[in-house]
């Protein structure tokens, strides 16, 4: 299992290689990349801040839940921190599974769950200012 926060560009081939085990027939990968706009408003760059120790613990818990639920032996999850330019990956997930259904479902579960309860925050920089993104729907709660 790879679970990491990194201030360096994410090495996607390394994540894919990590989950490419001989028993796996399918690998699903998801990359979140920095878009040039936020609901139409031009974005200059993004910044990501994390409560690092807890973020890694939550990411690990999510990956472990996915591995158990879909019977996986290989998952990699990397999230960037700091400043990112348009087109850079902010998050990368790679899931290997014997068959493709499990790979797709687990990969989707990981990104969806990450967005609801991993303490990481995104700041959008516009030409005339910056805002922290705080989705109304994504408020973590005790579990």
């Amino acid at each position, binding site marked *: 299992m790879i679970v990491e926060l990194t201030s360096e560009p994410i090495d996607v081939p390394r994540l894919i290689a990590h989950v490419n085990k001989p028993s796996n027939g399918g690998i699903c990968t998801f990359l*979140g990349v920095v878009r040039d706009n936020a609901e139409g408003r031009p974005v200059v760059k993004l910044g*990501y*801040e*994390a*409560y690092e*120790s*807890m*973020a890694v*613990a939550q990411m*690990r*818990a999510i990956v472990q839940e996915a591995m158990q639920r879909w019977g996986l032996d290989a998952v990699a999850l990397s*999230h960037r921190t700091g400043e990112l330019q348009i087109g850079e990956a*902010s*998050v990368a997930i790679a899931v290997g599974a014997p068959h493709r259904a499990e790979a797709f479902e687990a990969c989707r579960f990981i*990104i969806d769950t*990450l*967005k*609801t*309860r*991993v*303490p*990481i*925050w*995104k*700041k959008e920089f516009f030409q005339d200012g910056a805002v*922290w*993104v*705080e*989705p*109304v729907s*994504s*408020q*973590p*709660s*005790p*579990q």
Partner: protein
Amino acid sequence: MRETKRPPTAEPPAAPAAISVRVLFFASLADLMGDRHRNLDLTAGATVSDALRDLAQGAPDFASRVPHVSFAVNEAFVAADTPLADGDELALIPPVSGG
């Protein structure tokens, strides 16, 4: 994964009259509070809510943010009525937006 990092209590001590917790602020809350952390002295038995009440003093916009904030004690999400212990790390977590 979610074990709390409270110091071991070799012998049952008398309840301290006061506890100290470290509060962490992130993202918009760090901007609002003008800092990323603060040490808070509370009376023994104080809960997360009690800590929030203390923090609201001198920060007029803080109280209106509280309904949108989640709480973690020693890296585990908790409810607002959770009691705090001496040495706890209380993180105030605005709506997350990673990914």
